[in-house]
């Protein structure tokens, strides 16, 4: 690739962003802001409260009857109009965007309602009755492999959906010859870079042409367009997919909107109306998409002086309940750089992909990087510990040397450029590592817990669209045909007045692509930046695009901006030819400066850009012979370096490889276990920098998300598959208070493979920072088995061992976990009433009384003398839902004791419990004693245990207090009432 020389000095400057004026004044146009047709209806989705259950019946009668409801659909209705989504491995499974006969994760769509507005659509969800037969769930990827584990997909017969082994060089020999073998085992947790804007889709269907028209805040890759078209059973040209002008962030996540594109499209078809769906936050956290969790065992063969000669990877990837496109890409994106920043010749890899009862996984900033580097960089530190070497020396000793670039890795990657040692040395000097070490010594001398961690990683960018086929065997690949490349596209157009428009398929998610493209194209054409206008909306029916289009794998600066420069240069060459004739010089003497084309040797001989540019429109006959028009130029660019996997499974999975070296100092509060990042230094070589302000913005943003992943964020599941972090009060994203400011340093070695020399930069800290912090914590505590997130409770466990139960029993038994992983509650209480035992007894058996005293009951029906059915609405925090309860009476000793047992089920969760009620005669009436045991599962569990336990106690307490009141006595204890008030106040929402 020949580097483009640049002239105008716009590239590389931190100019103000053209995007900002609109965004700062409330004039952004995000998906939920776009005008829609007047007859647009709204979609709401009923979701599974169970991690694993069979669906035996769905009754939608009442929902359909609700005024304002236009259509109700179940999985069977959707399946009639669609096909299963394509699965990326050879396996006998189907993958539907909505459950059919079985739900496999909490939040899985079960039914769709289209109504006049979202409020009514949600009302109708409450009226859908689903009969579930719960099944045992499996959450842990290793347990999912056990012989007796519940199998998610019976057609597959196992939860292991793919396994491949790879061998590069001669790892066995290297291990046999090694002076040391060092290994580490890592369980990397689930998390998500969850953006502040959720998913949104607006869909239409034209029955006359059998064509769908969908606008969604989808981010790409547009290879997914093929998956959508196939699932909807239409050719690609009848599946128009458009993106809105603005997006509220994505970080990979908005790739996962595509199953909802399919659902909304079908909903529009069935209801014969345009349909709009905006995901809410609970839906987003519970069921949008997640990064993979992974269990890794990594072993290194190491020489006596700390040189790594071989790596052996064993990776067990958990992709959740379905293998959704493009998974298992998370596991293969890093395949070419499994040796990180190090020169290691021999590698063995075993990759297994397993399915569990969790949300399906997908793109997430860093994509595969956090998982591998956590293992690799923890291992490098451990090598230092075991060989009594400074981990920094181990890093330095193993780095790819500067004279080896471009460097072919053992697994087939081609590291484009760099001087890793020089970058590392500059980082330690400018980042004052010496001072940090002295600080650690001083802190330790005072008995404080202080540690230093390092991480060196290569940050891949511009994915090879063929890397995912590494999951297939060479024979399967040969049959399927080769896949490779990374088509980037840009169009530069000039209108009849000579102004320039740039159009790309990069689908920005807030990064400022329009600004950088204006910089690049204006510079190439010698124009002021404001003479160039950029449009980044994508419309698959009108715009140039390909499967690699979209915003992922940090491809904008290296690939898309480069394609725009190439398109501008093609037009520039033609403009020079046209101007040369007007200026009476040879084309090579024509220069572009400040809106004019001029003779470089005689600048007074000049003609305006607009005049030359307009000639193709107004006077095409005047163009020199053989010179093509300058109206519009579209360039598709794909790098030659991105080839299909070789027969030996070598794969250059990415075009560019930035280098990052981080180090940090952390202090741990001995009392609380809190980790404080004292100092963080991050050195980046991302090739040529196009806009320093934006590059630093990407680094800081990625760093903040990585701090979240390291210290706070985890998608947590209960043993029954219930999702426990469904609100932003439970899934803790760092605020400004938790986000330290890193020192950002740069070392520029331009990539020889990209038109502008740029490499990707957006994802690196998501790969380097979690492990850098973990290494520092390991250094501070001397603990090897570091697990994320490093919450105070977890760190305290390492400091003090596991918390022991208190020696004195508490009044209320603490929450325990039930056999199937539900939350168990127990409690007891009593109330004095004035009524006689007989009348209290009668009340307990009377549906009307029960209706009055069961909190939130709308209706209580008597099925038999000992069986009642109730419909109740309960709100716990922000989660308000309708439940059906079955209550049975047993062990009846009239009028003394009775056992009430019951189960309740609703869209938001399920509960079951038993209560023993004893009535004792007193001098003034009756004393009611009660004792209960209850278990709660499903979505309500995701609003946060703290809230739930309290709320459940309050609800149960309310029942007995109401009974007491009804029987004439027993004022409700004020503590409970106060708690309810506080809850209502806290959430301020009384629908």
């Amino acid at each position, binding site marked *: 690739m020949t580097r483009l020389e640049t002239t105008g000095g716009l590239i590389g400057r931190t100019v103000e962003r053209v995007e900002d004026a609109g965004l*700062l004044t409330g004039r952004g146009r995000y998906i939920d802001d776009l005008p829609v047709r007047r007859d647009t209806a709204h979609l709401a989705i009923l979701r599974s409260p169970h991690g694993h259950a069979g669906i035996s019946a769905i009754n939608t009668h009442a929902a359909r009857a609700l005024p304002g409801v236009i259509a109700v659909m179940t999985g069977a209705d959707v399946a009639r109009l669609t096909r299963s989504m394509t699965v990326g491995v050879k396996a006998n499974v189907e993958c539907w965007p909505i459950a059919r006969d079985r739900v496999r994760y909490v939040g899985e769509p079960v039914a769709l309602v289209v109504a006049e507005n979202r409020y009514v659509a949600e009302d109708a969800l409450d009226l859908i009755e689903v009969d579930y037969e719960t099944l045992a769930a499996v959450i842990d990827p290793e347990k999912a492999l056990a012989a007796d584990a519940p199998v998610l997909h019976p057609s597959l017969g196992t939860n292991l959906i793919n396994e491949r082994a790879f061998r590069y060089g001669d790892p066995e020999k290297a291990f046999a010859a090694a002076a040391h073998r060092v290994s580490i085992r890592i369980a990397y947790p689930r998390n998500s870079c969850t*953006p*502040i804007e959720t998913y949104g889709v607006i869909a239409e269907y034209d029955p006359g042409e059998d064509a769908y028209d969908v606008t969604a805040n989808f981010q790409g890759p547009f290879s997914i367009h093929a998956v959508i078209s196939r699932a909807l059973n239409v050719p690609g040209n009848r599946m128009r997919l458009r993106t809105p002008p603005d997006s509220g962030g994505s970080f990979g996540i908005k790739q996962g909107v595509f199953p909802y594109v399919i659902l909304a499209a079908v909903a529009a078809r069935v209801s014969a109306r345009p349909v709009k769906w905006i995901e*809410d936050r609970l839906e987003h956290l519970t069921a949008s998409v997640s990064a993979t969790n992974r269990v890794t065992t990594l072993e290194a063969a190491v020489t006596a002086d700390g040189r790594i000669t071989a790596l052996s990877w064993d990776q067990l990837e958990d992709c959740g309940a379905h293998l959704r496109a493009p998974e298992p890409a998370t596991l293969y994106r890093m395949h070419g750089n499994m040796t990180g920043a190090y020169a290691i010749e021999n590698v063995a890899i075993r990759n297994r992909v397993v399915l569990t009862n969790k949300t399906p996984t997908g793109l997430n900033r860093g994509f595969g990087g956090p998982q591998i580097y956590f293992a690799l960089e923890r291992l490098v530190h451990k090598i230092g510990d075991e060989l009594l070497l400074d981990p920094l020396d181990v890093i330095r000793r193993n780095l790819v040397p500067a004279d080896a670039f471009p460097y072919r890795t053992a697994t087939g990657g081609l590291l484009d450029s760099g001087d890793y040692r020089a970058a590392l040395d500059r980082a330690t000097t400018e980042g004052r590592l010496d001072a940090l070490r002295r600080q650690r010594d001083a802190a330790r001398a005072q008995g404080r817990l202080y540690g230093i961690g390092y991480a060196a990683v290569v940050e891949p960018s511009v994915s090879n669209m063929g890397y995912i086929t590494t999951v297939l065997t060479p024979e399967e690949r040969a049959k399927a045909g080769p896949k490779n490349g990374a088509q980037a596209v840009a169009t530069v157009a000039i209108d009849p007045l000579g102004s320039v428009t740039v159009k790309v398929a990069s689908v920005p998610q807030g990064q400022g692509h329009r600004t950088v493209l204006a910089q690049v194209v204006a510079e190439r054409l010698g124009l002021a930046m404001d003479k160039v206008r950029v449009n980044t909306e994508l419309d698959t029916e009108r715009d140039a695009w390909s499967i690699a289009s979209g915003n992922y794998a940090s491809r904008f600066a290296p690939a898309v901006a480069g394609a725009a420069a190439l398109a501008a240069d093609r037009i520039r060459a033609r403009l020079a030819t046209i101007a040369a004739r007007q200026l009476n010089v040879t084309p090579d003497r024509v220069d572009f400066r400040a809106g004019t084309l001029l003779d470089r040797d005689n600048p007074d001989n000049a003609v305006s850009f607009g005049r030359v540019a307009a000639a193709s429109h107004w006077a095409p006959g005047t163009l020199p012979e053989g010179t093509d028009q300058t109206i519009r130029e579209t360039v598709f660019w794909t790098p030659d370096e991105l080839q299909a996997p070789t027969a030996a499974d070598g794969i250059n999975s990415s075009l560019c490889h930035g280098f990052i070296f981080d180090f940090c100092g952390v202090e741990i509060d001995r009392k609380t276990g809190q980790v404080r990042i004292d100092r963080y230094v991050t050195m980046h070589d991302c090739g040529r920098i196009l806009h320093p302000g934006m590059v630093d913005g990407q680094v800081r943003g990625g760093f903040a998300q990585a701090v979240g992943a390291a210290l706070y964020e985890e998608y947590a599941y209960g043993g029954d598959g219930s999702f426990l972090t469904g609100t*932003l009060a439970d899934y803790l994203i760092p605020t400004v208070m938790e986000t330290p400011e890193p020192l950002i340093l740069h070392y520029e070695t331009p990539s020889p493979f990209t038109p502008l020399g740029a490499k990707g930069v957006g994802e690196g800290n998501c790969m380097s920072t979690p492990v850098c912090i973990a290494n520092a914590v390991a250094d501070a505590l001397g603990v090897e088995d570091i697990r994320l997130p490093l919450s105070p409770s977890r760190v305290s466990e390492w400091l003090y061992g596991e918390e022991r139960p208190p020696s004195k029993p508490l009044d209320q038994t603490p929450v325990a976990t039930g056999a199937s992983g539900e939350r168990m509650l127990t409690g007891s209480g009593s109330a004095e009433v004035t009524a006689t035992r007989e009348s209290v007894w009668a009340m307990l058996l009377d549906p009307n009384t029960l209706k009055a005293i069961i909190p939130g009951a709308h209706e209580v029906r008597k099925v038999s003398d000992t069986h009642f059915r109730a419909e109740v609405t309960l709100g716990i925090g922000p989660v308000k839902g309708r439940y059906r309860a079955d209550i049975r009476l047993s062990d009846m000793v009239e009028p003394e004791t009775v056992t009430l047992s019951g189960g309740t089920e609703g869209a938001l969760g399920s509960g079951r419990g038993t209560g023993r009620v004893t009535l004792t005669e007193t001098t003034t009436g009756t004393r009611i004693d009660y004792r209960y045991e209850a278990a709660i599962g499903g979505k309500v569990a995701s609003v946060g245990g703290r809230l739930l336990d309290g709320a459940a106690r309050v609800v149960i307490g309310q029942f007995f207090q109401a009974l007491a009141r009804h029987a004439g006595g027993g004022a409700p204890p004020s503590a409970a009432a106060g708690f309810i008030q506080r809850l209502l106040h806290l959430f*301020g929402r009384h629908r």
Partner: protein
Amino acid sequence: MPRMNAARKHPVDFTLNGRTVRAEAENRMLLSDLLRHEIGLTGTHVGCEHGVCGACTVQIDGRPARACLTLAQQVRGGDVRTVEALSRDPAELSPLQAAFRRHHGLQCGFCTPGILMSLDVLLRERPDAGREDIREHLSGHLCRCTGYATIVEAALAAAEEQRKEEKPNV
């Protein structure tokens, strides 16, 4: 006050960005939905609908408030201000907005309107606000793009500028 009926829409009269408006809303309609979908001012964003992210922050009677935790009916007779009113002239940015542009205090811009409405109150009430005040004030907002540093810088710059303008001779 007339008795309200859950199934019907009821008028809501209030002042919005300096103008009197009459809208109609069911009792359960949120202020965020009223502003965005009934009135059509989409500058106020919704990120969580449970009061944590701060994207929906508007000013009600001069105080920052979560539009997603406010029922439309609660602003009857009140004074609501949204991001659309932050600069007097739509072609120009207010000093705070301009500082955000200068300091790259936004990327996707989804969290930005809420943050601006919050900071606008802070700078009005506490012209002397320093870095720590600003950080504390911002802690009620989530931004997933920027890592916050540039937001703090922008706010500091705007505060500084405001102080200079108020005491031009000092």
